[in-house]
């Protein structure tokens, strides 16, 4: 039962450099950035002023008007991403058994902008001005709930919160549900907290880049690394039992979720090493692959020297110095919280499909990391496997292996 093959059959992407999987991929393979000065509020006076904002998204064009007042921006993005992913997979949910479909999303901060509006109503006007929708529009479970309602998916579903690692954890949970008997899961993560209150909270992490130059602000593995640029958006994927997908008439999938592992770092000051290496090894073991069989690694890309060193050390320990191509195309979109790793997984699947590894833009590799970082230009070649690594604030380490469909 646990050997059920689980494949990805549909992609829904909301990225700062492209709406929809193909637009995102066209931008990413060409090194086109979506990072710029914040437009969603006036960032003057804040120490960090750049973000990866999803531009050109008009929710009204995609969603019924009754959903607009009751949803945060991240939920609107997620609802449309789910629609696109289902369309891409050629799924009509009404034709599938309702208890065999589910939704598993990751969340980091919920509908924070909605929450800011209602906190403001409460404290500047009074409790009777708080919206009736506040009871669910901001909370972490909202995307799963709204997507399940929109598509009448009534099977096992869930919501996980593990900061930037959450996107992979949600996909792993989707695979688990498929192996327990579900046929189809909408899985991934979408976050959007580029609002003043969300910005203050993100600044508190002390990991944000304060540069004003979009090309110099987010430089993982570079000697000039100075923190990251946050972004919004993410990806939702259609995950299916490979056999069920075939029976449904899906000719080919984007690839198989072949392996997963996760660990949590020891308490700072304990003297013990990060569990990142162990997470990667668990994922490889779970996929039944040796390090030499991995064609490319998508790095987490904290862009803080201490964290980049841990990442590079784990990669070189497992794959050897310069042993595997490593890339971090999130330099074009920023770190998307729960959406980040889900989008990386999409990028990995499209890289396998097209035999092309997108570059880590703007970065000059600092010599002491010992990794084969793909910079400047995309790298072309046949790919059949990829490893995606994600790390969440506080010590969450997740790793996932995808493999080309047979």
């Amino acid at each position, binding site marked *: 039962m*646990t050997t059920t093959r689980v494949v990805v059959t549909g992609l829904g992407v909301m990225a700062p450099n492209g709406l929809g999987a193909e637009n995102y991929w066209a931008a990413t393979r060409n090194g086109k950035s979506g990072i710029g000065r914040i437009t969603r509020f006036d960032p003057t006076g*804040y*120490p960090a002023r750049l973000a990866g904002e999803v531009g050109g998204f008009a929710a009204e064009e995609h969603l019924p008007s009754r959903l607009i007042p009751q949803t945060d921006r991240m939920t609107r993005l997620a609802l449309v991403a789910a629609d696109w992913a289902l369309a891409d997979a050629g799924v009509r949910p009404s034709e599938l058994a*309702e208890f065999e479909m589910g939704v598993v999303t990751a969340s*980091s*901060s919920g509908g924070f902008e909605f*929450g800011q509006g*209602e*906190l*403001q*109503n*409460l*404290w500047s006007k009074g*409790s*009777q001005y*708080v*919206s*009736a929708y*506040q*009871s*669910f529009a901001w*909370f972490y*479970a909202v995307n799963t*709930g709204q997507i*399940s*309602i929109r*598509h*009448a998916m*009534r*099977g*096992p*579903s*869930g*919501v*996980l*919160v*593990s*900061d930037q690692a*959450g996107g992979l*954890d949600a996909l792993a949970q989707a695979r*688990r549900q498929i192996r327990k008997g579900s046929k189809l899961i909408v899985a991934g993560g979408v976050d959007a*907290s580029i609002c*003043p*209150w*969300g910005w*203050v909270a*993100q600044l*508190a*992490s002390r990991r944000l880049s304060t540069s004003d130059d979009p090309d110099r602000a987010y430089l993982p593995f570079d000697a000039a690394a100075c923190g990251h640029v946050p972004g919004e958006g993410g990806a939702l994927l259609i995950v299916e039992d490979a056999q069920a997908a075939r029976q449904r008439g899906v000719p080919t999938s984007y690839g198989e979720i072949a392996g997963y592992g*996760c*660990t*949590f*770092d020891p*308490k700072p000051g304990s003297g013990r090493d990060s*569990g990142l290496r*162990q997470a990667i090894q668990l994922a490889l073991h779970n996929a039944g692959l040796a390090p030499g069989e991995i064609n490319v690694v998508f790095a987490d890309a904290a862009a803080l020297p201490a964290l980049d060193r841990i990442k590079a050390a784990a990669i070189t320990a497992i794959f050897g110095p310069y042993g595997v191509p490593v890339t971090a195309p999130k330099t074009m979109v920023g770190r998307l919280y729960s959406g980040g790793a889900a989008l990386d997984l999409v990028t990995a699947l499209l890289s396998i499909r097209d035999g092309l590894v997108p570059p880590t833009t703007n970065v000059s590799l600092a010599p002491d990391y010992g990794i084969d970082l793909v910079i400047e230009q995309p790298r072309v070649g046949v790919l059949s496997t990829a490893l995606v690594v994600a790390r969440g*604030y*506080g*010590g*969450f380490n997740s790793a996932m292996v995808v493999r080309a469909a047979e």
Partner: protein
Amino acid sequence: MRRRVVITGIGVIAPGGSGVKDFWNLLVNGETATRKISFFDPAPFRSQVAAQADFDPETHGLGPQEIRRMDRAAQFAVVTAREAVVDSGLELTALDPYRTGVTVGSAVGATMGLDAEYRVVSDGGRLELVNYEYAVPHLYDYFVPSSFAAEVAWSVGAEGPATVVSTGCTSGLDAVGHACDLLREGSVDVMIAGATDAPISPITVACFDAIKATTPRNDDPEHASRPFDRTRNGFVLGEGSAMFVLEELESATRRNAHIYAEIAGFATRCNAFHMTGLRPDGRETAEAIRTAMSEARVSAEDIDYVNAHGSGTRQNDRHETAAFKRSLGAHAYRTPVSSIKSMVGHSLGAIGSIEIAASVLAIENNVVPPTANLHNPDPECDLDYVPLTAREWPTDTVLTVGSGFGGFQSAMVLARAEASVA
């Protein structure tokens, strides 16, 4: 061969007492912990009642830095997790840390911290562009509540899978269900799993006011939570945490641990109906119950006690009563059903785990806790809800259910470990 998961350690913080013993005493005595809100002046709010926990972090061993850094909900989780580990007798430091994991359920995360900090940085809501210079250094831990899982993992030394499960008011059941999955698939040997929430903040009270989900029975707070009673008119907000040590039956038996119960079956479904509404026919809850019973390999007649969601809203009480009849058939009329929310309120994401604790203690003591304040049964609710007084009752197998905003419906079957040995 299926790995069987058992509970070998429990830690509880609930309103009306601290620790497992106080919690159970409150329940069997049918006492209530619902009072007028004292955390802030509730006068401007429609509902002014809540079940607050009497909790002093210092007496529970938290240091000044931990107290400053953690939201109240995180403090609860760390304390109950440590209690559960001590109770289990496990020496976690002697085990492979990568094989110990953590799942913490929470519906609303650090709402108390976020509400308070928002007021500080926005000058009481006057500034739209809030002033970052006044933010506390650990604001990011409030922003993303995965910090709860991080704090628990650090405090017990776990380095395996760690996550927060946030499925609204079924979080407490789903977090434990998730932990069972990890144990059964063999990813871990031990899970520290449970849930926490500390939602009694002005913003949470205001948002439930706005949809009239909470009771306005402000003149009689001690009797304000009245599930299945004709006069009920909304739930009473609560707070607290329950965390458990879960391990495999075999390893627990080998180390001669006290086994509270086996987590024999678990299932969750979505109603895909409404973000806050419930279908009156109880369809998806019934489906979750049937699946959980089938996983547990028990039939309706084996269920000795049903720990109901019983939030005290009319729509829930009808929904749930229908679901029990749909899934248990005629046995629904014979088995006792009760709601401890009548006594400890509704602590959102935490309550599912607190109710697992109550269910396990019912098995341990062969006593079924009552539904307090049930004087005038609603004619639409015609099951045996154990009104007012606890009942001595042979209890080997318990069904506990939950229902959450977002449409989540979850069910878990807990069984006396000896009784489940085939």
